[in-house]
């Protein structure tokens, strides 16, 4: 949904971060590879959920059964499933980037490990599982309409109502930024991240309301959250870009030649 | 501690409590079914905005703050009050 943010910062900048060093000898190459995989992932992610499946923007929970059946049987859903399956692993890379920044902060390792655990669960229940619910309907069009309606609800509720893991993750990130004394990421980003985790709480109403502003396609439970989320995702990404770029050489693990015996 | 009783903040607080009770008095239910009532609504919204203004000005010490912050904080309060009244009026 928030693809295409890569335009503001071009690949060339990263290559010239160290003067006169070819890009493939950049000491931070590992971080840059992972960093540039993120726009690729988000573009695929956007492609899968918007123009391929038209799962987003969300359809109404109050839709009549024939509409649900027609949507659940659209064959593009299977292409969406395939692309998502291939790309899902990249969500791990994006989250690992945040975890690496959290490692640089003056906070306990528990922040990044809890964050990583949340990222694992979130990818399954908040991303893969919902897409599969839709894909299953398309894979075997012969299913009863009630089964398709069940999958429809299950898919949307787990996609939009998956708030626990993300609330945890964004709160951890926000707290780590605010407690950090190294100024790895700006303090205001920490506060913005708090709102981002609060929007996850707003989404709790989708488990109750079947129509109106608090339903899963509602003005407050979905659209307003998007207004906060999409810029946040881009801003946090730009901040991570700056953090990697400004990371001093001496902090890098591979900055000094490693002596043979310096293991363990 | 008695110095704190004669503090301007304490006077502001006393005034806030008084108008809170006043707004409750205006808006209290009498056991009868609630009816649409613009006078009550405008009254309690104005009092709420006045209270908000006092909290921003004195408790949050925006009265001493930079002009930028003053404008933003007071602007929020005024904009919110106007929008609430506008949409209330539109729904009448």
């Amino acid at each position, binding site marked *: 949904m928030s693809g295409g943010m890569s335009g503001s910062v071009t690949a060339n900048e990263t290559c010239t971060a160290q003067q006169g060093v070819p890009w493939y000898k950049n*000491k*931070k*190459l*590992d*971080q840059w*590879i*992972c960093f540039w995989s993120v726009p690729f992932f988000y573009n695929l992610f956007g492609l899968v959920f918007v123009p391929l499946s038209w799962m987003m923007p969300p359809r109404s929970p109050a839709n009549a059964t024939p509409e649900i059946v027609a949507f659940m049987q659209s064959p593009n859903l*299977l*292409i969406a*499933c*395939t692309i*998502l*399956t*291939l*790309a*899902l*692993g*990249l*969500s*791990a*890379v994006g*989250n*690992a*980037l945040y*975890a*690496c920044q959290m*490692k640089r902060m003056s906070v306990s390792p528990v922040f*990044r490990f809890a964050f*990583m*655990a949340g*990222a*694992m*669960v979130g*990818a*399954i229940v908040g991303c*893969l*599982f919902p897409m*599969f619910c839709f*894909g*299953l309907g398309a*894979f*075997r069009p*012969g*299913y*009863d309409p009630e*089964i398709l309606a069940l999958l429809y609800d299950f898919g949307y509720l787990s996609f939009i109502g998956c708030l626990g893991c993300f609330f945890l993750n964004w709160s951890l990130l926000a707290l780590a930024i605010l407690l950090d004394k190294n100024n790895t990421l700006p303090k205001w980003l920490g506060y913005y991240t708090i709102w981002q985790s609060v929007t996850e709480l707003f989404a709790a109403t989708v488990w109750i309301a079947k129509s109106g502003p608090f339903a899963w396609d509602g003005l407050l439970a979905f659209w307003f959250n998007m207004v906060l989320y999409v810029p946040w995702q881009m801003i946090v990404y730009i901040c991570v870009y700056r953090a990697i770029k400004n990371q001093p050489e001496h902090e*890098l*693990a*591979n*900055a000094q*030649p*490693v002596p*043979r*015996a310096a*293991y*363990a | 501690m008695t110095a704190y009783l004669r503090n301007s903040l304490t006077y502001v607080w006393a005034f806030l409590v008084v108008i809170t009770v006043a707004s409750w008095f205006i808006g209290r239910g009498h056991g009868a079914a609630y009816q649409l009532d613009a006078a009550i609504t405008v009254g309690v919204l104005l009092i709420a905005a006045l209270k908000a203004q006092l909290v921003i000005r004195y408790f949050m010490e925006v009265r001493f703050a930079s002009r930028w912050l003053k404008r933003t904080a007071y602007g929020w309060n005024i904009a919110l009050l106007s929008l609430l009244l506008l949409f209330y009026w539109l729904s009448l």
Partner: protein
Amino acid sequence: MNTTGQSLLLWTTPVAGVLFLFAFFMFPGFSPPMSPTMTPEEVAAFFQENVASIRGVVILCNIIGALLVPLFAMIAVQMLRVVNSSPVFAYSYIIAVGIGLSAFILADFAWGVAIFRPDRDPQLISLLNDMAWFFFIAPVGTMIVQNLCLAGSIYLDARPDPVFPRWVAHFNVLAAVLMLPGAFAFMHKTGPLAWDGSLSFSLRLITFAVYVAVMFCVLLTIVNRQVEHEGVAA
């Protein structure tokens, strides 16, 4: 660092391998694999006929999935010894393992629920079976990212005496490429790309089995070298 624990955990991998072979030949759904073209009634009948063996396999697979975790965790631990500018590849690897394993376990559970009451409405049995296959295919994506992260961190290892030999990186890229066609099983009901096809099923599982065996040997060597070169107690 003491490596006794590492070796001990590493040896859970051959145990998983033996159980895997056992399960593979015990589960009639896998030899030959169930066709995606089966109707719900056929699927339900199939489950009703093979209750005991499927049930056994469901329980075994639950354990196998978990027994493979130490191998991947060991790889992650060794990745953290690799010198890159940051642990980003290792962290990605750990998260990807978690995602892939959860998907595998969900597949197993879907089959388990189907076999728990095989006399359910055939539509529901078929749904659970489809769901199981979907989740069985899903780890392909995480395996690809895992392998590429491992390869990346090996290629960029700044140690004069690298933790992983370079060919392991090439091998990981190769394994990722060979598993890739498995993801296209959602789009095909027949042919080599269907979930029972030669590319999506046979090639993928053979690649995975070989991959696990090779990585086991690689890690065995690495742990032994760690003992030798760094004087850590074995």
